[in-house]
């Protein structure tokens, strides 16, 4: 194993502890240090592609100490978090000059990255909770960073619902511990497999679904997201929509459901229905919005629905004993959509930040004709919009196509119809963005605006390249076999997770 796993937590953590020591005047040094930290994480994540392993903290044997696990699924998430946080950090360098207390902002940003990496790597359920709290608390503070009226209100709403979700999860952990006497996920899974689910564990599972569902903003639990994501500064919106809801919500939920409790038919249906509800409701709510970031936030709910729906469909097929090829295809579609969405949604939020930076407003009806003055923003935004709407050569098309094939082949024709329908909704909402923001006449008051070049445009162009090249991840067999397939195998393997972890050196 080339990169020791604690590095992914230690680098951002130590940097975050150092950053508040910088004063306001030395913020250039702080920015440089923070960018080096995210760059190092990106290098580490790329170096550990295709690796797997278990790291025992303090060299204690497994159920006594805490273990960190890197397998296909967590490796995929680590890579996504690193790419998006690298771009968002670059974008922050110029964008955050508007606000004071920049070193503290950078520190909170890195703490959020620490929390996400910790959640993704953890093999211990209480440890997962602790790192989830780090990431959540950092994000509550970052949502309220501007300290305006809307920011504070959104931050409070987010914090209340987030704290309730955390308490649900902690109560669930207590119930699991009471019933199995263990906190290590591999050992819990073994104990559950040994004697089956009793009522206490079922209740714990319900609490986990509600708690992680709240963190992921799936539809009955989505109330906080459309307020919190638009209120945050643009790079933070990109992080929240791009990776935070995935690492804290979807990843943790899927890991607990598939690898610890084991997928059943009922659970598969629960995930499927949560996903479909999110897809449809998020899509309809997004179309009516005139605030550009609010539209994108609702569209995040809708796109996250695709991910959960695909993985739930795969689980359902596995639990029903259907054709495993279609199950694999559905899960592959879900996971591929997850990383696609991370890249293009964060790019969209960065472009919205660039637009807001130049024009000073988020209302789409007050913009227009910006394609002349913001050419790079326009180009990157068009790429991301085409990708999210599923225009053929781009990656969003492939993931939706895979989901469609899997749904139809497994006999869920109605699901295929919904997938196509929501794809059309997405296309409409992003055509609306293009129409209102970039086409048409430039209003009087925006005549003098110009694009801010430098780190902001560089970050957007970088993500746009990723966005274009993302399709290769699926189409080049070698890349697919090293990046996507191991993640699919982890989920399809289900409860074999525990024996694999315990056997690993």
């Amino acid at each position, binding site marked *: 194993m080339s990169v*020791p796993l604690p590095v992914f937590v*230690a680098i951002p953590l130590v940097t975050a502890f150092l950053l*508040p020591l910088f004063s306001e005047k030395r913020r250039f040094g702080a920015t440089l240090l923070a960018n080096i930290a995210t760059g190092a994480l990106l290098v580490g994540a790329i170096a550990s592609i295709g690796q797997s392993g278990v790291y025992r*903290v*303090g*060299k204690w044997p497994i159920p006594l100490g805490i273990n960190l696990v890197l397998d296909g699924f967590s490796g995929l998430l680590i890579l996504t978090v690193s790419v998006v946080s690298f771009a968002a950090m670059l974008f922050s360098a110029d964008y955050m000059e508007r606000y004071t207390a920049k070193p503290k902002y950078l520190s909170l940003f890195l703490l959020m990255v620490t929390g996400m990496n910790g959640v993704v790597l953890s093999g211990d359920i209480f440890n997962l909770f602790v790192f989830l709290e780090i990431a959540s608390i950092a994000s509550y503070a970052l949502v309220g960073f501007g300290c305006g009226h809307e920011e504070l209100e959104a931050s409070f709403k987010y914090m209340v619902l987030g704290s309730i979700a955390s308490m649900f999860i902690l109560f669930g952990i207590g119930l699991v511990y009471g019933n199995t006497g263990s906190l290590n996920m591999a050992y819990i899974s073994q104990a559950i497999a040994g004697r089956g689910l009793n009522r206490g564990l079922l209740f714990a599972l319900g609490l986990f679904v509600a708690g992680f569902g709240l963190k992921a903003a799936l539809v009955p639990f989505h109330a906080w997201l459309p307020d919190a994501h638009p209120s945050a500064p643009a790079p933070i919106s990109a992080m929240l929509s791009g990776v935070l809801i995935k690492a804290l919500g979807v990843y943790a939920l899927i890991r607990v459901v598939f690898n610890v409790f084991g997928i059943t038919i009922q659970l598969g249906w629960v995930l499927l229905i949560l996903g479909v509800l999110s897809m449809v409701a998020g899509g309809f709510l997004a179309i009516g919005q005139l605030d550009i970031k609010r539209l994108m936030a609702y569209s995040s709910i809708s796109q996250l629905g695709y991910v959960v729906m695909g993985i739930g469909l795969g689980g359902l097929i596995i639990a029903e004993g259907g054709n495993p090829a279609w199950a694999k295809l559905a899960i592959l579609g879900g996971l591929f959509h997850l990383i696609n969405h991370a890249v293009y949604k964060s790019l969209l939020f960065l472009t919205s930040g660039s637009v807001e930076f130049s024009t000073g407003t988020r209302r789409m009806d007050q913009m227009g004709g910006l394609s002349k003055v913001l050419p790079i923003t326009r180009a990157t935004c068009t790429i991301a919009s085409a990708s999210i709407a599923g225009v053929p050569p781009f990656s969003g098309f492939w993931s939706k196509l895979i989901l469609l094939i899997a749904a139809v082949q497994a006999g869920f024709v109605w699901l295929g119809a919904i997938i196509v329908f929501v794809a059309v909704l997405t296309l409409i909402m992003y055509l609306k963005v293009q129409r209102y923001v970039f086409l048409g006449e430039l209003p009087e008051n925006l005549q003098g605006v110009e694009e801010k070049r430098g780190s902001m445009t560089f970050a957007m162009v970088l993500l746009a390249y990723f966005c274009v090249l993302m399709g290769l991840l699926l189409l080049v067999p070698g890349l697919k076999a090293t990046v996507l397939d191991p993640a699919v195998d982890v989920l399809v393997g289900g409860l074999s997770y525990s024996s694999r972890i315990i056997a690993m050196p």
Partner: protein
Amino acid sequence: MKGMTIIVKSVSSWVKMLVLLFGIYITIFGHLTPGGGFAGGVILACSYILLMLAFGREYAEENLSLCVASKLDCVGALLFAAVALCGFIYGAAGFFLNFVHQKWQAGQGSALKLVSGGTIPLSNIAICLKVGASLFMIVLILSVFRADSSSGKEEVS
């Protein structure tokens, strides 16, 4: 913000030292008796908060200013991370390895003595520093903010 009456002031100037000592005791003996870094740190912070409540904010800030508290907070956190990373360097990639105990103290009959437990007392002290500084800071900031917003006539929309 001038503080409380003379009785409170003279009692708290005595009690302050006792609370401070108790906090330090609880921290240092954390691996032998109930307590530990967190409880010790909170008690340490309480002694300064007592000072602040009795004598007023300015007096407490003379003893420990916000800037210093913020630095102490970072230093404590870095010390704890350093204890973890020392294991990494010393014990061949053993993040959080209790290297002190395993190298020098195991089997030396040091059990139940003050110097035992390897890195545990060190971590306790680091955590005490970090928790004490940060909790003092939060109370100080809350009171500074209140003083500002009550004097500075913010407009309310």
